C-alpha cells in the first residue's frame, strides 16, 4: 500500500511518465536493433545542443511565454564562435562571445516583450528572422570553419572515462537549470508567474524582471548550445539551427511542460527531448524509410503525450489525500465537452 502510494505519487511528477516511456522504448529498440546501444553515444552527442534548447524552451514556457528564436540564435552563436575562433581570438573569448550572443538575443527578446509589450510569439518570430538573417550575412562574408583550437574541439570530442565532455557540460548546465527552477527564489517566481501572471504581480513579484530573466536564460542556453554545436560541427553554414525551435518546444511539451505555463521542469524537458530524439534514432536504425518517418513520428508524438497525460492524471487521483476539503468537484481545465 505504501509502495502503491509512492508509485502513484511519483508518476504524478511531471516528466516521470515520459521518462518511463523513454526507458521502455530504449529497451524495445535495443531488442529489435541490437546495435542500438553502440550508437547511443553518437546520437546523444548530436542531440546535446537540441537538449539544451529544449531546456531553455521549457524555462520560458514554464514562465508562461514562448521563444521561437532559440533555433536560429543557437545557429548564430555557433557562427559567431566559429568566426571569432577562425579569426584568431583566444578560445575562451570566442566561447564567451558565442554564449554572449545568445544572452544578447535573450535580453533583446525580453526587452521587446516586457518593455514594449510586444506579443512574445511575434517578437521572437522577428528575432528568429533577424538572428537567422545575421548568420546568413556572416556566412556570406566569411568562411565559418577552420578553427585550430584543440581545446575547443575537445568540448565535444574529448572524453572523461569514455564519456564525451559535452555530456558533462550539458549535464552540468541542465542540472543547474533544474536546481534553479526547483530550488531557488527565481525558479519559484518563474513558476508563480507562469501559473498566474496577474496574481504573481499582485503578490510582490516583479513580473517584468522575472520574464526578462526567463528569456535571458533561454537565450544564454541557446548560446551554450551554439558553442557546443560549433565545436561538434567544426564548421557553420548559413541555415544552422533553423527549425530546432520546434523540435525543442515539442520536446519540452512531450516532457510534460505545459504550454499554459507553470508546470514542468528542466529534467522533464530533458526526458521529453530524449524521447523524441531516441524515437527518431531508433526508427532510423530499424530502417523506416524516410517517407514513412513523418507519419510514424507524428503518431509516436501523439501516443507519447496521451500516455503522459493519462498516467499523470491517474497518479494524481490515486495519490490524493482523503480529506473533506477535497470534496469539492475538481475543476476541469481540459475540455471534454
Amino acid at each position, binding site marked *: 500500500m505504501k509502495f502503491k502510494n509512492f508509485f502513484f505519487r511519483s508518476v504524478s511528477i511531471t516528466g516521470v511518465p515520459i521518462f518511463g516511456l523513454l526507458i521502455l522504448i530504449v529497451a524495445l529498440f535495443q531488442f529489435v536493433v541490437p546495435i542500438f546501444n553502440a550508437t547511443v553515444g553518437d546520437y546523444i552527442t548530436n542531440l546535446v545542443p537540441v537538449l539544451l534548447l529544449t531546456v531553455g524552451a521549457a524555462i520560458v514556457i514554464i514562465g508562461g511565454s514562448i521563444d521561437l528564436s532559440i533555433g536560429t540564435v543557437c545557429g548564430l552563436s555557433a557562427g559567431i564562435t566559429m568566426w571569432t575562433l577562425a579569426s584568431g581570438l583566444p578560445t575562451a573569448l570566442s566561447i564567451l562571445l558565442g554564449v554572449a550572443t545568445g544572452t544578447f538575443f535573450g535580453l533583446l527578446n525580453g526587452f521587446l516583450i516586457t518593455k514594449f509589450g510586444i506579443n512574445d510569439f511575434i517578437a521572437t518570430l522577428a528575432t528568429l528572422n533577424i538572428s537567422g538573417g545575421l548568420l546568413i550575412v556572416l556566412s556570406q562574408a566569411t568562411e565559418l570553419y577552420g578553427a585550430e583550437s584543440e581545446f575547443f574541439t575537445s568540448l565535444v570530442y574529448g572524453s572523461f572515462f569514455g564519456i564525451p565532455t559535452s555530456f558533462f557540460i550539458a549535464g552540468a548546465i541542465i542540472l543547474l537549470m533544474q536546481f534553479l527552477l526547483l*530550488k*531557488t*527564489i*527565481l*525558479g*519559484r*517566481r518563474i*513558476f*508563480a508567474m*507562469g*501559473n*498566474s501572471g*496577474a*496574481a*504573481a*504581480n*499582485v*503578490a*510582490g*513579484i*516583479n*513580473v*517584468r*524582471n522575472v520574464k526578462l530573466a526567463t528569456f535571458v536564460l533561454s537565450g544564454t542556453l541557446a548560446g551554450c548550445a551554439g558553442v557546443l554545436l560549433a565545436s561538434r560541427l567544426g564548421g557553420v553554414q548559413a541555415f544552422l539551427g533553423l527549425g530546432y525551435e520546434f523540435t525543442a518546444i515539442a520536446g519540452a511539451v512531450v516532457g510534460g511542460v505545459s504550454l499554459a505555463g*507553470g*508546470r514542468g521542469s528542466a529534467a522533464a524537458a530533458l526526458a521529453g527531448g530524449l524521447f523524441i530524439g531516441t524515437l527518431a534514432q531508433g526508427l532510423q536504425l530499424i530502417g523506416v524509410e524516410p517517407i514513412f518517418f513523418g507519419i510514424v513520428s507524428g503518431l509516436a508524438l501523439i501516443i507519447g503525450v496521451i500516455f503522459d497525460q493519462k498516467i499523470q492524471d491517474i497518479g494524481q*487521483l490515486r495519490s*490524493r*489525500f*482523503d*480529506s*473533506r*476539503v*477535497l*470534496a*469539492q*468537484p*475538481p*475543476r476541469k481545465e481540459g475540455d471534454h*465537452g
Partner: protein
Amino acid sequence: MSFPTALSTTRSAPIILDIRQISKSYQGVAALENASLQVRKGEIHAVLGGNGAGKSTLIGILSGVTQPDSGEFLLEGSALAPRNPRDAIKSGITTIYQELSLVPALTTLENIFLGRELIIERAGMKVLLDRKKMKNEVIELAQIFGISKDELDIPISEFGALKKKVIEIVKALTFDARILILDEPTSGLEEEERLHLFDHMRNLRSRGVGLIWVTHHLDELHGLADVATIFRDGRTLESLNLENSTVGEITNLMFGIQSNEAGLRTKNDRLQKDDKSNRPEVLSLHAVSRAGVLRDISFSLHAGEVIGISGLAGAGRTELARVIMGIDTRTSGQIFLKGKEVNFKSSAFAYKAGIAMLPEDRKQLGIISGLSVAENISISNLSSVSRFGFIISRKKERELATKYKEILSIRTPSVNQKINNLSGGSQQKAIVARCLNSKPSVLIIDEPTQGVDVAAKTEVHELIRDFTSKGGAAIVIASEIQELLELSHEILVLRNGSIVGRIENVQNSIEKSRVVEIKAEVLALSAGKRLKNEI
C-alpha cells in the same frame, strides 16, 4: 434541544422542484449525502451553509454540470436528469453563478442571448442573428437596470465590475426560468444595487418563479427569503420558516455548537483608538492622480489605524490600491512611506518597503492556483525561507506555513496541498498569511471577505484587528458599508476617482442610529453623480 419548527404548511403553493435523496461523491469523498429539499412556486428559498457544505455540488447537479450518484429531482412532477447545462436551461432551471460568467469578448447583447440567440429567417435559411429583435426584447429590462441602448453593443471587457454584474442579472432575468438559482448574487454589489436586485427577486417571486438563493449574508435573509434550507457536511439539516427563526439560530445550525459565537463578534471588541497625532504617520498620499482613473487623492494613515475606502465599483477603489502598490503607475502626486517619498516600479518594491496587498479577485489575483498552500504563503517574502539568500529551504517553508496554518486556523490536511483544493475562506486566510509573512507596516485589503462564509469572515476581521493592534496600519476596501464600519477608524468615500467625503472618528459612533446615518451619508456621496445622470 428545540430547533425552530419545520416549514409551516400555511404556504400552500404547489411544489415545483422536489429534490429527493441526492448523493454525490468525488473519489470516495461524499460531497452530498441524501440531500433533499422542496421549492414551491413563487418562493424564495435560501440555501445556507459554510464553505464545502455541499451547496456548490447541489447547484452543479441542478444546473446539469455534474450528475448525481443516486437520488433524483422532479420539476413540476416529472423527473429530470440534465446531462449538461443546456438540458437544464431547456427544462427551465437557470443558474447565475457566483463568478462572473460573462464572456469579455462579446457585447452586452451577445452575452445576454448567449446560447439562446434569436435567428432571422432569410430565404428559408435560418442563419443570421436577429439583433434587432433581441434588442427589442431586452431593452426594457436593460433600461430598468440602467443599461442604455448603445451599451448593448459594447464588449463586456470595456465595462467595470459593477456593470458586469448587472448585465449578468439582466441576462438571468431575461431567461424564462421556472427555477432560478442565484449563487451569491450580491457579491461585489453595492448596497443600493443589492436593494435593486432584491426588488427584482420579489418581482420574480410574484411571477411564480421558484428562486434558490445561495448566500453567506445572513442579514439579507429576513424580509426577503421565505424558507431556508441549511447544509452541513453534505447533508440537508433543516428547512426553516424564516418568519420564526433568528440569525443566531441559523448560525448555530450552520456551524454546530462550537462556533456558536461566530459571525457576531463585531462592535464589542473593536480596537481602542488613541489620538491620531500620538501615532506615527506610516503612509501618506499627496494629490495622487492617475489619468482617467484617480484624481488628487490625499490622505494619511497612522500606525494602528484602519482607513476604510468606500464607493461604487469603478469609483477608483481598487485602482487606488494598485497605484499605491506600484502595480499601476501614477501620473502625478507623491506617496510617502514613513516620511520617505517612494515611487515603486512594481509591487515587488512595495512589498520590500513594507506594504502588502490582499487583492479583490481571489481566484484571479489572489491565489496562485498551481502552487501549494505553503508556496502561496511564502511567495511574497521568499528570503524568509531561504538559505544564502537564494536557495529555498522546503523545510523552512513548511514550518512557516504550518505556523500560519495554526495561527490562522487554515483548514487543510497539509500545507503541501494545492491551494485550489481549499475552501474560499481558507484560501483567503492563506493570502492573509502571505501578506503577514512579508512583515508589512501597511496592509491593503480589497474586499476582505468576498465569497467567504460567516465564520471565516469573522476570523478574517479578527486577523485585521490583530494586525493593527500590533502597530500595523491598514487600508480596507469594501462594498459593504457595514463591514467598513466594523473595521475602520476613518472612511473615505470615492467617486469617479476623487475623494468626495470623509467620515472620521467612526470609532466613537457605534449607536445604531448613527450607523444608519453614516450608511445613508456614504451612499449619497458615492451615488451622487449617478443619480444626477439618471435624472
